[in-house]
């Protein structure tokens, strides 16, 4: 049986796993954006928080993913459900690029523009919403793009704690020394990653402010 036949025969399962994977990644990215963008903004407002916040996100990033899943397992509410555990661990991974890019984007806004905004009587919130965020949007999206591609890859490891997704095939394939099974997980994951990279890259370019 060649690879194409394998994919056709197991199409339903592969599709099911792919949807699980997208669900894991989507939920993770939603949480990472909801937490990461405000943290990135906070870093620009309270520079003394920059070290602790970016430092913590950095540490999370350096923990090997399998180990991170393991560390979180004994935590009461988290360890109860595999997908819950996976999403939290993946979110911790996805945070760093988002926080970093949000802060960098806002810091990169032309000083003259910010100065003019303040001088004309815009409130801090108006400056943030009407000036700083729109002008840093493409940088923020670039961070989300990096985080998404990363998460799609790392999410395959979530299968190790039973969270499902395309990693299921990979781990089973490894255990059974079955290349086709491994590829049934690896190929859709790679396609997802490339697709996300392409789409978010397009969005990033469209939102880049003209100079």
């Amino acid at each position, binding site marked *: 049986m060649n690879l194409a036949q394998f994919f056709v025969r197991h199409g339903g399962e592969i599709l099911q796993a792919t949807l699980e994977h997208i669900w894991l990644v989507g939920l993770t990215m939603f949480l990472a954006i909801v937490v990461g963008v405000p943290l990135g903004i906070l870093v620009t407002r309270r520079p003394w928080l920059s070290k602790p916040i970016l430092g913590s996100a950095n540490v999370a990033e350096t923990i090997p993913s399998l180990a991170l899943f393991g560390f979180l397992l004994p935590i009461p509410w988290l360890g109860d459900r595999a997908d819950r555990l996976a999403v939290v661990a993946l979110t911790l991974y996805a945070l760093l690029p988002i926080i970093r890019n949000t802060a960098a984007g806002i810091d990169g806004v*032309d000083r*003259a*523009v910010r*100065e*003019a*905004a*303040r*001088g*004309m*009587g*815009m*409130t801090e919130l*108006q400056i943030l919403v009407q*000036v700083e965020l*729109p*002008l840093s949007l493409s940088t923020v999206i670039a961070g989300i793009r990096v985080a998404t591609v990363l998460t799609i890859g790392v999410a395959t490891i979530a299968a190790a704690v039973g969270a499902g997704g395309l990693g299921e095939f990979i781990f089973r394939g490894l255990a059974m020394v079955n290349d086709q099974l491994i590829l049934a997980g690896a190929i859709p994951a790679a396609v997802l990653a490339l697709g996300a990279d392409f789409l978010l890259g397009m969005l990033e370019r469209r939102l880049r*402010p*003209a*100079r």
Partner: protein
Amino acid sequence: MSVEADTKPIIEFYNVSYRLPAGQALLNNLNFAVPRGETLVLIGRSGAGKTTTLKLINRLLEPTGGEVHIEGRSTISWDPIELRRRIGYVIQEAGLFPHFTVEQNVSLVPRLEHWSEKRIGSRVEELLALVGLEPRKFLSRYPHELSGGERQRVGVARALAADPQILLMDEPFGALDPLTRGEVRREFHDLEQRLEKAIVIVTHDISEALLLGTRIGLVEAGELRGIYSPREFVHATEPAAVAYVAQLRVLEEAERTSR
């Protein structure tokens, strides 16, 4: 000179000092007043304290000694947002919002002040015409589609949008090439005489000071060394003033010999 209510100073500095939190003094004991219809040009070296003086007027900074009064009230008793919306502010490179069209840039303060769309529309057209830009042609352009001189004109239109009594300009024409600078400056000179506002301009360009100023304040090392009429300034004995005027003479000389 008659003392009418109208000529009462809009901007007043009483013994104003400003020092950085670390203790370094940037401004020492400034005293001056600017009434309506007057343009005070602050001239001095980079770092002399000119921009700091401007920022004390719209409360981007607060004095560490003395008081700055706007329309008779100390800046620290004003709500800073309300105060700034009553003061036009033009900075070098214009500081236009790159993601806003000309129309959006100019209408910024009226929008913040919740003017009706109809009133905003007619005001924007009026302002663009005032600074010599044809509204139909420029309304929907973005700043990167404008020349330096056009950007600066939009910056002036934006500052004038809500018809402020006070206009602050920080090296407004500094980033322009010399020819455009001369052009925009002359236009502004015509404009300023029609505006009847209290204007403070910061520059280090002596010809700008002489052309635009009804009075010229010489700022050196955080102190106001004197306030002169343009005519007085040319004949002042203060060494720094003499140095500026000498620079002007050199220019005139070069102009004459190159003809």
